[in-house]
């Protein structure tokens, strides 16, 4: 009796719940909902280097001195500065060492404070002081102070070997030993304070050397040069701008970073709420200096499941959704959805080989000798080996079948449309099993061909297309010579850090994106002897090679200010990359963008990729 009653009540309740679905769903007319794959990590512009933080939140809430002309990656327009410095208008000195920015008046921060040149000077200096390990402040150090980071300066001034030597118990987050206090203060007074000066309404940058790429690290989409409110930042507990305690604010752990979850910028949106792991909600800043945005609310949700994102797009619960290439076809037939294709993205996928492999605990090289059961440690230092692999990869089949044609070949570390990019056919390796055979037969004086080789090729787990590329190399190598046994092995991210960055991977497939759209960034990273990748993963033999043949050119191209001359120099570097087969440059993805067709005003800028939006330009309507 009682049970039947309970069951009836339950059934009635369920009916009521379902009945409630029939009244009109709220269509979210004044919210734009964007769904991305990964969550935002921080709100601090000087900490961020993950794409969601940088482009979904910081770029929408903070402004920079300059902006890019709509959709361009090389033309600048004024933003918080009122003019773009050039030699012509006198704001850039002839020797390339001084950049002057006149500052716009009457710009408000979210909390009502007015923007002054003080804020700009403070923002840059804080970036230098903060300099977190693994962050992007190093981009300022190279032009402004010609070094890697503030710790390098501190060590030089104090005369110690390691930065932590100056602290009690070697803990940089602890107490500073009193004998170093004076030296540490000098770091600010003699170095950091000298890079930026204020003259009335103008902010002046003093570079340490001529740097053709300087303007590329200042504008919008470079979060590290976002302008924050000095007064507010100090109130929240950030660096007070003084020289006598700066080390306490240097490289904190995330939980001690006072700005990690709060926002106060001059950008068109304010932070409403951040629920880590779920969503970020932004709302319109009505006093924005460009005029208020068209849309009142923005909500970004973080959903890793493709199926869920797709269903949200289908039902209209999401306005913009991140769609991986292999599923684009599924979205094409959806009603009410607009797809924009053929957007060149600034990513570069390549196979890198280690010229001098680290043998310690290395299971990927077999016997470690050229005896058919493994490879010797300097296997890839022979140019014929490298060239052989470059000829044996079926580029066209890969791009058309695995990538569904959504990619273009890149001949070098430079992507289209960066300065210096060239599609000269001379620079591309063609797929030719004959030529590959020729090269391999010459490798190691013919021994390789006779004895064969056996090793592993590595790819990061979860990337189906990269596994396919590895399978292709393995398959075609075997086709050429059955004694070539190359087995693909997938690595979890933690394992790949351990293997690739300690020079253990014979071949590793890798995707890179530049931090800013100047060729120097990529070339240095992928070819320089001290490059982030080439200097750390390619091995001793490569470093020696690069020091002699690559570095001088890189320096020359960097100092050059004439764009045409620079382009020619970068083309020369590309030629070297090709001739020496420094890496196997695979492809540059062509991206796409997917939105519901009631969203208006979208435009593409490769810097923020199609996954992250400039919400100021968007609106929603029928």
């Amino acid at each position: 009796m009682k049970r039947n009653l309970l069951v009836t009540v339950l059934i009635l309740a369920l009916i009521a719940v379902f009945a409630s679905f029939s009244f009109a769903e709220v269509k979210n007319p004044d919210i734009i909902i964007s769904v991305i794959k990964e969550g935002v990590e921080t709100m601090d512009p000087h900490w961020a280097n993950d794409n969601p933080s940088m482009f979904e939140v910081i770029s929408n809430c903070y402004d920079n001195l300059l902006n890019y002309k709509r959709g361009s990656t090389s033309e600048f327009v004024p933003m918080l500065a009122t003019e773009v410095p050039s030699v012509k208008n006198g704001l850039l000195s002839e020797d390339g060492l001084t950049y002057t920015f006149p500052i716009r008046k009457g710009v408000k921060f979210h909390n009502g404070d007015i923007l002054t040149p003080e804020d700009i000077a403070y923002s840059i200096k804080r970036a230098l002081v903060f300099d977190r390990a693994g962050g992007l402040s190093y981009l300022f150090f190279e032009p402004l102070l010609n070094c890697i980071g503030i710790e390098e300066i501190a060590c030089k001034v104090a005369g110690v070997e390691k930065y932590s030597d100056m602290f009690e118990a070697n803990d940089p987050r602890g107490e500073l030993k009193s004998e170093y206090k004076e030296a540490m203060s000098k770091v600010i007074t003699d170095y950091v304070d000298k890079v930026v000066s204020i003259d009335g309404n103008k902010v002046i940058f003093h570079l340490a050397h001529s740097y053709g790429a300087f303007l590329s690290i200042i504008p919008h989409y470079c979060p590290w040069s976002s302008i924050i409110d000095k007064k507010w930042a100090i109130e929240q507990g950030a660096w007070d701008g003084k020289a006598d305690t700066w080390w306490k604010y240097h490289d904190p752990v995330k939980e001690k970073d006072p700005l990690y979850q709060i926002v106060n910028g001059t950008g068109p949106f304010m932070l409403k709420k951040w629920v880590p792991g779920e969503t970020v909600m932004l709302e319109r800043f009505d006093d924005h200096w460009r005029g208020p945005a068209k849309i009142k609310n923005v909500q970004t949700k973080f959903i890793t499941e493709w199926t869920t994102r797709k269903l949200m797009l289908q039902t209209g619960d999401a306005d913009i959704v991140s769609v991986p290439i292999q599923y684009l076809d599924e979205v094409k037939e959806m009603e009410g959805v607009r797809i924009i294709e053929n957007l060149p993205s600034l990513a570069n996928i390549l196979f890198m080989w280690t010229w001098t492999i680290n043998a310690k605990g290395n299971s990927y090289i077999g016997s470690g000798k050229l005896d058919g059961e493994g490879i010797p440690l300097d296997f890839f230092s022979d140019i014929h080996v490298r060239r052989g692999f470059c000829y044996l990869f079926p580029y066209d089949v890969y791009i058309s079948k695995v990538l569904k044609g959504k990619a273009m070949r890149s001949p070098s570390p430079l992507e289209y449309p960066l300065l210096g990019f060239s599609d000269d056919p001379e620079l591309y390796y063609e797929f030719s099993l004959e030529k590959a055979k020729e090269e391999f037969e010459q490798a190691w004086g013919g021994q390789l061909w006779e004895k064969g080789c056996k090793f592993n090729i590595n790819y990061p787990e979860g990337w189906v297309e990269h596994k396919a590329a590895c399978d292709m190399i393995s398959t075609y190598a075997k086709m050429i010579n059955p004694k070539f046994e190359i087995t693909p092995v997938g690595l979890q991210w933690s394992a790949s850090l351990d293997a690739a960055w300690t020079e253990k991977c014979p071949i590793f497939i890798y995707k890179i994106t530049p931090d800013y759209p100047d060729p120097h960034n990529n070339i240095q990273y992928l070819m320089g002897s001290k490059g982030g990748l080439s200097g750390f993963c390619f091995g001793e033999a490569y470093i020696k090679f690069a020091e002699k043949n690559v570095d001088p050119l890189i320096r020359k191209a960097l100092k050059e200010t004439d764009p045409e001359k620079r382009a020619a120099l970068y083309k020369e570097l590309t030629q070297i990359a090709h001739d020496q087969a420094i890496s196997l440059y695979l492809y540059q993805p062509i991206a796409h963008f997917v939105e519901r067709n009631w969203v208006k005003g979208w435009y593409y800028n490769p810097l923020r990729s199609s996954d992250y939006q400039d919400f100021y330009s968007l609106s929603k309507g029928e």
Partner: protein
Amino acid sequence: MNRTIRKLFSNASSLVGIVLLIIFIIIAVFAPIIAPPLSDDPYQVPRMSWNVNPQAPGFIMSDNIREVYDYMGKNVKQDRAICGTTEGGYDIFYGLIWGTRTAFKIGLITVIISAFIGVFIGSISAYFGGWIDEIIMRITDIFLSFPFLVAAMVLTTILGRGLDKVMISLITFGWMGYARLIRGSILAAKEETYVMAAKALGVKDIKIIGKHLLPNTIFPVMVQVTMNIGSMVITAATLSFLGVGAPVGYADWGQMVSFARNWIIGSPGHAGQYWYVVFYPGIFIVLFVLSWNLIGDTLRDILDPRLRGEL
């Protein structure tokens, strides 16, 4: 024993289970004939196409892949993907057949080893009692207090992908149930007169445990073993689904379904067009686990002393 087997065959549901199991055993044994391997490692599922999209059942191997196999002198007898391909072009049919062997491997090895460990630990603990019992039971409690799936995920992420690593994680966190079970039974049984008599006669402890106690108390463990084979396979499939577990391209049902989660909805207007990616591996998993569960369920009823005489 004979009575048990007779009862298993006479009960309808367990009969179905036994028949299913026999079918699976046949598939596993004859795998090399049903689905001839095309590479040195038979557990490496052959690709039918370089295309990322799953291909429908009946798809014929694409030309550039066939060229490669011809060149390498491999005789391609099976060039049709009867059940279609998964994301990345792996032949589903091949994966199903060899996956049967993988399922048996995972199920039997993990369960037998963890049962062995569990029974060993549990019987020592129960027989000797006192301090030993306390300490061993505390250690068992510690392992039991782990959230199983999370612990298995962590261990497999650390150890890396691979079937053996999955089995290690499952064994590490799977022995406790057996330990507790056998301990309960032995604690009750060791007060029996025949045990006391054996002790009085001076029979060695090991012999008492091995010859007298265990044979009389092992039945609940056997039931548990049958039930757990199925759940181990499901857990392994879950780990593959979550991205840790068998490597991509390995013949493992769970691995094949892990591709499926992104294709299950299909395109609008063609809802469920990639049904075969989920359906075939899914049905194999369900039937395999079902067969063990049906047998185990009936076995439990047969051996339940409270129901003796009823069944």
